[in-house]
Every structure is written in structure tokens, then in C-alpha cells.
């Protein structure tokens, strides 16, 4: 690139910085001679140069490299620092054992080794300690799973109680569907806390007729069974809705306060459901129930709370046995005094209790259902009440 009046400034700066080649410096000199008005500009630029000749560094000794550190001294320094490998360490030790000057040098170098003063301690350690703030413990997943299982069980139980309301069972393993009028789920009457079983008057006659019919049909020699219906009252409304073809009739007999079963009725006695409209007392009624047949003829589906009855010689034990579903309105428990069967075995009778027209406590029905499930699963026979967490709630 040739110098001219448009680019001479760059060439002047490079000239002052001594960055131009000999040829380019000569070209700048020629340009300046041809343009004398620009010469003064080049001179001014040259005067801006700073000269460093006046600054001198004294005492350069500490900058000099010590080239005369002997190999032995180097090894001794490494030995003092503990940086020698095992093989080299043995070599140095062997030299020290024989070389007197090395021993002297080693003695001096050992004196340059500092020893910590253990009396110097940091007194205020308390100010250094720290404590983490409280943290949230994560909820363990298995607890969540357990809670979900319990919740699911509760929902399932509630659904079962809600759906199961229309099935009754008569005799041994026979279920009889309710009439339409009697299939309505009766909800608990909160005002009748202790009322156990009720049956509408118009249903009672139908039941009695049914019992008569089944009595006639019972020609298979099955022992007549006196079924004593134990009706317990509790604070939760217990309602049994009457069903068609039920052979259980209300009996107005009242259970003695000592809870002993009432005497058996003869076969001619018509079983009847006890119609208890009063409240506030525990009652056990005796029912005569004549099973229609011995064949197990369960009708699956919407079953009422099934009462599984076992009898002993002079006592009856009533168990509530749940089927798949439980009518929340059924709370009546039938206590059966069975005559000894021909085979001498206890007969398990299933008793359907009509719950059509009787109000029951939804909670009581739910608790009963839960109780039956527990008993069935755990084979634990409980009393007449529902056990929850070791506490038994008497069901009336």
C-alpha cells in the first residue's frame, strides 16, 4: 500500500512505534520530504515516546536463581519434607550414614522444620457450631398406600350396604326376594334410636299366611325350629324390612332382662315378627320359624343381612353372617332355639328378616356389615355388638 495524504497518519504511528520495515520507513521519509507541512506532525508523534532509562532496580540478588543447589541438598530437602519415595529414602539414609557434610547439612535443615504449638487453640468453638432448621419428614409411601386401602375398603363396604337391600333368606340356605313394596330401603329414623324391628300391620298378615303355607309344605321331616328373634336395640336405628314369604313373624314377647332365651313355641304357633314400636329397651323375642326345605337354595344377588343361627342345648347364639351385601336397614337378629335335630347336630339356619317398612340406621347397618366382614375374615366370633378397635358397640 502506498502512502498518500489520505492514509499517512497510520504510517506515521507505525513509524513512531518502529513497526515498519526498512522499505516502508524509507517510503515514509520520502513522503515527508515531498510534504513538508506534514513533517511537524511526525516530529510531534516522535516526542510522545516515553523513555525508561531512568528507572533502575536495586538489589537484584533475590532474583538470581540458585543454580548451585547440589543434588544432595535437593534430596535432603525432599527428605525433610517427606516427599521421597521409599527407594530414594533409603539411598539418602545410606548417604547420611557415611557422609559427614551431609549429616551437618541434614542437622541444619532439621532445625528449619517448624513444630505446631498445641497450646494454641480456638477457644470459641461454640460460635462455630451450626444446627439445621427443622425439616419436613416425607410421608412414606406405604402409609399412603395403607390409607388408600382403608379408604377403599370403607367405600366398598358402604357401597355394599347401599346396594344390598332386597334379598331375604328363609330357612336353610333359601333366599326369598322381597316384595316390591318391601324392597324399598328404609332409612333410619333418627328419632327412634332404640327401635329395632318394625313391621307394618298390613305386612304382618301376609307373613302369617306365608308361614302357614310353608308349614304345609314342610313335609320333609325337618325339625321344626323355634326361632327366637332377638331384637336388640341400640342407639343406632335398627330396622328390618319385612319381606314376602318370610317365615318369621313378629312376636310381641319381650325378652327378660337377664337376656335368657324365651321358651320355645310349639309348632302350631305362628311365627311372627316382633313388632316393636317402643324404644329404649333391649328385647329379645322368640319366633317360630318353619323352614320351607332343607335344600340350600340361596338366591344370590341382593341379599339381606343373613342371620346365621346356631343353637346349643339351652341357649342360642346368634351370629350375624354377612353375605356379599348387607341391607343397611336390617338390624334384627334372630335367635333360634332349635330342637335337636335327628342327627344331633346343630343346625345353622339362615333367617331373612323383612326390613321393608322399618327404619334402620345407616351407620348401624354399616357397622354390622363391617363386623360381619371382620368376623368372616378373621374367624373371630364376637358378641352381638360391633367391635371397633377393641371396643364393642352393642347393637340394638
Amino acid at each position: 500500500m502506498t502512502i498518500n495524504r489520505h492514509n499517512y497518519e497510520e504510517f506515521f504511528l507505525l513509524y513512531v512505534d518502529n513497526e515498519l520495515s526498512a522499505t516502508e520507513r524509507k517510503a515514509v521519509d520520502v513522503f515527508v520530504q515531498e510534504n513538508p507541512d506534514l513533517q511537524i506532525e511526525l516530529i510531534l508523534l516522535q516526542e510522545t515516546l516515553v523513555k525508561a532509562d531512568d528507572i533502575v532496580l536495586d538489589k537484584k540478588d533475590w532474583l538470581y536463581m540458585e543454580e548451585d543447589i547440589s543434588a544432595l541438598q535437593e534430596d535432603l530437602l525432599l527428605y525433610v519434607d517427606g516427599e521421597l519415595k521409599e527407594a530414594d529414602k533409603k539411598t539418602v539414609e545410606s548417604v547420611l550414614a557415611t557422609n559427614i557434610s551431609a549429616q551437618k547439612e541434614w542437622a541444619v535443615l532439621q532445625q528449619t522444620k517448624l513444630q505446631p504449638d498445641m497450646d494454641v487453640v480456638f477457644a470459641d468453638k461454640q460460635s462455630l457450631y451450626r444446627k439445621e432448621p427443622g425439616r419436613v419428614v416425607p410421608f412414606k409411601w406405604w402409609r399412603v398406600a395403607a390409607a388408600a386401602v382403608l379408604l377403599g375398603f370403607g367405600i366398598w363396604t358402604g357401597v355394599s350396604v347401599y346396594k344390598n337391600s332386597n334379598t331375604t333368606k328363609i330357612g336353610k340356605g333359601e333366599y326369598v326376594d322381597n316384595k316390591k313394596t318391601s324392597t324399598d330401603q328404609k332409612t333410619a329414623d333418627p328419632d327412634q334410636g332404640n327401635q329395632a324391628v318394625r313391621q307394618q300391620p298390613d305386612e304382618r298378615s301376609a307373613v302369617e299366611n306365608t308361614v302357614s303355607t310353608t308349614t304345609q309344605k314342610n313335609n320333609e321331616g325337618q325339625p321344626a325350629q323355634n326361632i327366637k328373634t332377638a331384637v336388640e336395640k341400640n342407639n343406632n336405628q335398627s330396622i328390618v324390612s319385612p319381606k314376602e314369604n318370610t317365615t318369621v313373624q313378629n312376636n310381641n314377647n319381650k325378652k327378660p332382662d337377664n337376656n335368657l332365651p324365651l321358651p320355645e313355641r310349639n309348632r302350631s304357633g305362628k311365627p311372627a315378627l316382633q313388632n316393636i314400636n317402643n324404644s329404649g329397651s333391649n328385647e329379645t323375642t322368640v319366633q317360630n320359624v318353619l323352614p320351607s326345605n332343607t335344600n340350600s337354595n340361596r338366591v344370590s344377588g341382593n341379599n339381606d343381612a343373613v342371620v346365621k343361627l346356631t343353637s346349643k342345648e339351652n341357649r342360642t347364639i346368634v351370629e350375624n353372617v354377612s353375605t356379599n351385601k348387607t341391607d343397611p336397614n336390617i338390624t334384627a337378629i334372630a335367635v333360634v332355639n332349635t330342637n335337636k335335630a335327628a342327627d344331633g347336630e346343630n343346625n345353622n339356619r339362615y333367617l331373612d328378616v323383612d326390613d321393608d317398612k322399618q327404619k334402620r340406621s345407616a351407620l348401624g347397618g354399616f357397622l354390622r356389615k363391617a363386623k360381619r366382614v371382620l368376623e368372616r375374615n378373621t374367624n373371630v366370633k364376637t358378641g352381638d355388638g360391633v367391635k371397633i378397635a377393641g371396643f364393642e358397640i352393642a347393637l340394638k
Partner: protein
Amino acid sequence: MTEREYNECVNLYADNVYRFILKNLRHNEDAKDVVQGAFEKLWINRDKVENGRSKSYLFTIAYNQMIDHIRKSKRIVLSEDFSENAKGETSQKHDAKRILNEALYKLNEKQRSLVLLKDYEGYSYDEIGQITGLNESQVKVYLHRARLQLREYIVSPENVI
């Protein structure tokens, strides 16, 4: 690093760090401040520091804070030497230690730190390099020079033991 491990570090290394810093700064309160700052940083970064490297981490932080402090304050230390026993005994051993301390303070802060890390804590060249930000060969050269300087001071005619 857990809370328990951190507090254990306080028990194990607070004295060592304090001794190292105090020997360098020769000022009690400044040394305490540096120690406090170093442990504070360890606590803040406890999740990032493994328990096995906590000591070197502490010394690294303390060393850097000490250098910063020296550069900021440019203090000329006139306080007494805390490593001295103030009983007034004049034993040969006591003189040797005094002379060595004097020689130590003839070194610059970097050389002094290297000598202290080597002699007080027994760190290797590599570990000292990680703490001070030097490479291993630099540590070796600086440390050897410092050692020879101490040697020269000890054997000088005015300090002959």
C-alpha cells in the same frame, strides 16, 4: 455433609486452622475472623463438600481469606509472637525456636504459608498446591527456597546457635 459431620469438623479442625492463620497474621482477632469466615463458608456449601475433603476445603478458604485480609489491611504486625512461651526462660531450645520464628517472618506470606502447611499439617506438595492455587512444581520450588532462607538465617553469624 450432614450437620453432625460439620460440627465434628469444628471439633477436629478449628484449632488447626486457627493456628495456621494466627501464625501468618500474628493477630488474634483477625485470625478468629478468618476462621469464622472459613467455617461459615463450609456450612453454606456443606452439600457440595464431601466429609473427607472438609479439612483441605477449610484450609483453602482460610488461606484465601487470609491473603485477602493481608492485601486489604497491609498491617504491620507488632504483636507478640503467640507461639512463644511467656515464662521468661532462656534455654537454648527456646532461643532456637525464637530465632526460627524470626526467620519465619522474614519470608513473604506465600512462602510462610507453604512452610506452615507443610510443617504444621503435613500436607503433600500436591495438596498444598490445591490449597494455595499453585502447581506441584511451584510448591516444591517455593518451599525449598523458603527452607533454604530459614537455614541461612539460622546459621548466620548473628544467630549462630
